[in-house]
């Protein structure tokens, strides 16, 4: 994970901070010659502060998050990363044969540079590797990086030549100094012999003063001072030139590393060692980056460390990609996509990633799109969409854990429906403000809840006409006026659609009258055939259960038509009540004769006959 953490710095900040240590700046040119190509490129101003370096972003692989600048970012959802990730998944795989040849070329460069041991073979190997570098830069996947390395190597070589020129200039200055000193010595001796005897009376102090004035008049001391100054300046400039070249080269290597061009970084390291074989491999990094290196790699930052990290990362990428492909083939897309992304982040340009089949990547892309839709749906609380996406994702990702999403849906649905129910109650009771508040609460939990829209419409309706209808219904239910409810059933059915507590009694009332209507229709049909007594009996039975006005009305009408039967029946009932069984039997027999098919006389005769026989 150490390389991932380092690479992430670049991915996030897009900047490589390099060589923050103070580098002496000078505007003076060397006395002998001015080194070519000396620039400040790649050398950062120590005073400058770059985002992402003062505070280094930290990757938590466990939660797939990045902690940076006091905030936590989801690794998978970071827009920049996501864009690159999607782009990769949509790209065709690099042409395998071309990529293989290119990769072989890079490997050969590394091998050639690694094999060199003595000075002679090292020089030849460097030259050969340099030639291979030119060839490798012609491949499309290289994107000209080998050419960049090549340019840097050339610049380093030129820097070495400038150092030699400075040394020659210094030698010339040294000779000049010796010559001036000699001349000064000779002049001083000749002058002192000629004037010593004549001016002996002036004393020793006077002699020295005169000698000094004489030397000043010759200009030797001034010249010597100038030469000394030039020599020191040239020494300093020579060191600066080499230091700058080294920094530039290191900057390029680190840049390549952070760009995840690990093979190029390794090639850079090898060339660097070849050009500057002085054993100085320490990387000139800022304190924070140095500390990060130390913490993550467990060693101080050097080119060797960088090469080691590059190799380790390449190995990790290869293993991760293999594992991802295996998981995807076994329909475990959730893990497979994660492993692939983990490999992609550090190994975007690694051979295993570049040659991954496009079909495989498209499968991952399909899953990733659904996953992103899911995340967006969770963010927007679109639980309907979440419910639709989960089975879709499960088709290709049997390892996808949808438990938390399903829990989320259930909880949200329950809470939203609870608020909708409360809103309905409030609306029915005329509490408009409460209804609105409850609807708002339901909307906050599940903004795109289909039930919410329906409830809103219904409540709007309830709060106007249907509210009154419900009030009227309540009154009729209290009065047990089933007939009135039945007569306006369309209105009340609509009104109770969102008043669940009233649905059952309303339905029961309507059903009761529906049964009454059926009996009334049957009685009318019987009466039409002339059997008014039987029709009366049907309605009389019904009337004992229902006090419906229509039944009472028709019963009264039939009572007139079947008066003899009704009289006989009523008299029989009265007699039976008085235990006048003989009369009751005779009267029921009369009623039965008047209304063949009537049930009451038959039932009563059977019962009374039993009583008569027992006695």
């Amino acid at each position, binding site marked *: 994970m150490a390389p991932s953490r380092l690479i992430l710095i670049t991915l996030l900040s897009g900047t490589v901070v390099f060589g923050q240590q103070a580098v002496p700046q000078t505007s003076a040119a060397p006395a002998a010659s001015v080194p070519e190509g000396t620039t400040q490129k790649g050398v950062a101003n120590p005073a400058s502060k770059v985002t992402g370096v003062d505070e280094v972003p930290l990757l938590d692989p466990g939660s797939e998050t990045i902690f940076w600048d006091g905030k936590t970012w989801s690794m998978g959802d970071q827009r920049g990363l996501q864009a690159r990730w999607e782009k990769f998944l949509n790209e065709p795989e690099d042409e395998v044969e071309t990529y293989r040849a290119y990769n072989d070329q890079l490997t050969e460069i590394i091998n050639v540079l690694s094999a060199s041991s003595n000075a002679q073979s090292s020089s030849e190997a460097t030259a050969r590797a340099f030639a291979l570098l030119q060839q490798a830069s012609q491949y499309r996947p290289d994107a000209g990086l080998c050419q960049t390395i090549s340019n840097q190597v050339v610049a380093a070589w030129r820097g070495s030549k400038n150092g030699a020129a400075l040394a020659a200039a210094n030698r010339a200055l040294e000779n000049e100094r010796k010559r001036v000193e000699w001349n000064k010595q000779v002049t001083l001796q000749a002058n002192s012999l000629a004037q010593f005897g004549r001016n002996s009376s002036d004393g020793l102090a006077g002699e020295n003063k005169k000698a000094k004035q004489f030397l000043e008049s010759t200009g030797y001391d001034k010249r010597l001072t100038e030469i000394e100054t030039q020599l020191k300046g040239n020494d300093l400039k020579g060191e600066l030139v080499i230091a700058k070249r080294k920094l530039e080269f290191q900057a390029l290597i680190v840049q390549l590393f952070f760009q995840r061009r690990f093979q190029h970084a390794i090639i850079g390291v090898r060339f660097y060692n070849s050009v500057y074989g002085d054993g100085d491999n320490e990387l000139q990094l800022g304190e924070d980056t140095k500390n990060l290196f130390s913490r993550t790699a467990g060693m101080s930052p050097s080119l060797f460390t960088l090469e080691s990290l590059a190799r380790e990362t390449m190995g990790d990428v290869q293993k991760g990609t293999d594992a991802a492909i295996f998981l995807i083939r076994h329909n475990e897309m959730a893990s497979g996509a994660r492993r692939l992304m983990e490999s992609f982040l550090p190994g975007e340009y690694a051979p295993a990633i570049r040659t991954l089949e496009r079909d495989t990547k498209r499968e991952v892309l399909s899953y990733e799109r659904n996953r992103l839709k899911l995340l967006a749906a969770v963010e927007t609380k679109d639980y309907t969409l979440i419910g639709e996406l989960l089975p879709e994702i499960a088709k290709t990702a049997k390892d996808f854990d949808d438990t938390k999403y399903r829990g989320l849906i259930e909880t949200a649905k329950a809470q939203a429906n609870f608020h909708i129910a409360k809103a309905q109650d409030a609306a029915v009771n005329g509490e408009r403000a409460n209804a609105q508040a409850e609807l708002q609460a339901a909307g906050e939990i599940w903004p795109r809840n289909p039930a919410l829209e329906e409830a809103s419409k219904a409540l709007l309706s309830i709060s106007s006409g249907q509210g009154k209808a419900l009030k009227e219904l309540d009154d009729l239910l209290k009065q047990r006026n089933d007939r009135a409810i039945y007569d306006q059933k369309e209105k009340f059915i609509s009104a109770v659609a969102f008043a669940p507590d009233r649905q059952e009694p309303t339905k029961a009332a309507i059903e009761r009258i529906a049964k009454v209507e059926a009996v009334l229709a049957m009685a009318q049909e019987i009466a039409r055939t002339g059997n008014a007594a039987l029709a009366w009996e049907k309605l009389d039975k019904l009337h004992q259960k229902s006090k419906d006005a229509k039944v009472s009305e028709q019963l009264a009408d039939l009572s007139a038509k079947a008066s003899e039967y009704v009289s006989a029946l009523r008299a029989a009932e009265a007699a039976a009540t008085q235990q006048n*069984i*003989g009369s009751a039997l005779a009267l029921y027999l009369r009623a039965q004769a008047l209304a063949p098919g009537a049930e009451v006389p038959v039932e009563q005769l059977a019962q*009374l006959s039993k009583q*008569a*026989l027992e006695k």
Partner: protein
Amino acid sequence: MSRRSKKTSKSWILLLAGALFTSVAAYFVLAHLGAPYRTLQPLPVAAYVQNSLSLQGNTYRLSGQIENQMLWDKGFGRVVSILTSEGLVAVVFPNTVRADNLQRGQKIIARAEVGDKGILKIEEFSKE
């Protein structure tokens, strides 16, 4: 001759008429005298239907046609509806009365008592 013949014819007609009258009268007298339970008062059906309790303890002659057997219990007997000239009444034929092969349409004459709760019980009967 003719006057004598006319006298003889009238005599025969009167004799025959007298014999016929005598026969009819004799039939009714004999029929009345031979009818069962002729000493019993016929059941006042209307009064019975109106309030049978008021006739409790009385015994009547009941004649009518069997309308329907309403109930039969092997241990107790049967309840039968009788269509009288004044309407239907229900009577009990207890097992103590031998009442084999009662069926709808048979005419019976019975001695019946208005018992407890006004229930009419056959004590004796005969089929016509």
